[in-house]
């Protein structure tokens, strides 16, 4: 399973790229592989404030719909509008072009509660 070392993760299979006080969030390669070919992505709106654990987005494949949660509190500063026309970007490049939204953190200490790549890789099932 593809788990980039430089990202942080949640048990619900979101990834977080922490560069500064603005973080980028998406769903992991494992998550996209479980859902299959995505057909629709419902994104939050830039400017919305979010609390860690809020349902902020929905990803849908032909037969499945799954919520996506914000792992952190803060303000949505950007969303990946390319996903509206091309949800398959998440299937093709979950950790890159398939990013979903960015959040300006209101509480940097929340980052301590996120999983490391090693912890996350130990949590998800292998590619058995």
């Amino acid at each position, binding site marked *: 399973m593809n788990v980039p070392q430089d990202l942080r993760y949640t048990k619900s299979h979101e990834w977080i790229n922490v560069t500064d006080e603005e973080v980028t969030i998406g769903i992991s390669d494992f998550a996209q592989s479980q859902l*299959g070919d995505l057909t629709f992505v419902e994104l939050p709106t830039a400017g919305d404030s979010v609390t860690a654990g809020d349902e902020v987005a929905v990803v849908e494949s032909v*037969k499945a*719909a799954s919520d996506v949660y914000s792992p952190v509190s803060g303000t949505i500063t950007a969303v990946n509008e390319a996903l509206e026309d091309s949800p398959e970007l998440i299937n093709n490049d979950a950790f890159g072009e398939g990013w979903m939204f960015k959040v300006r953190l209101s509480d940097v200490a929340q980052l301590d509660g996120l999983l490391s790549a090693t912890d996350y890789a130990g949590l998800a099932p292998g590619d058995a």
Partner: protein
Amino acid sequence: MPSPRGYFWNAPVPYAEAAALQEELVRARIAGRIPDTVLFLEHPPVITLGRRGREDYLKHARSFYRESGIDIIRSTRGGDVTYHAPGQLVMYPILQLSGSASASHGYLGLLEQTAVETARAFGVEAYTREGMAGAWTDAGKIAAIGFRLKRWVSCHGMSFNVQPDLCGFDTIVGCGLEGEAVSSLQAILGEAAPTVPEVRTIMAGIFGRLIRAPFSLEAWTDEGLG
């Protein structure tokens, strides 16, 4: 991890009631108050549209369905439009997929495999089709799939035609697939077709084996909510 629990109902459960119960079970499962739980039931006649199901797959005006006693409900599941009625067995697994054996093979495939093996257990050859979720026989589609994940706990799931009145399917473009036939065990096997309780016992056995966590079936009581 305790064994899953399996429950059945002997009378049809209204769709909205079953949806509300599943929401409660999903919350309880996320909170760890209950183990994985699998529901087996039938619905009174109802057409459900998935989150993005298109109303133009309804072939008639709303009044037609009202007069025919068929409810139309918007569901939170994925997928398009489908029809449920007594004689069709639905299986709704409330399963924590994250970290379970089922997840590594894909939950969609697991539901399809369950439908295919259930049909075969009664001597009906069924198969999956590339890019089209569900299970099919030479006579038509026998099982439909649409599910929802919340924190990687599943709800909704699969419907399997044992002996429903198939006419209801003629009023919709099932799953948005124009010109696709729908079938049932009864349509294929005639008098030799099994009953819904017989099928649910077999299906529960197959599903339990596929998730590597066999479970027994009992009649639903509110104790199932933990």
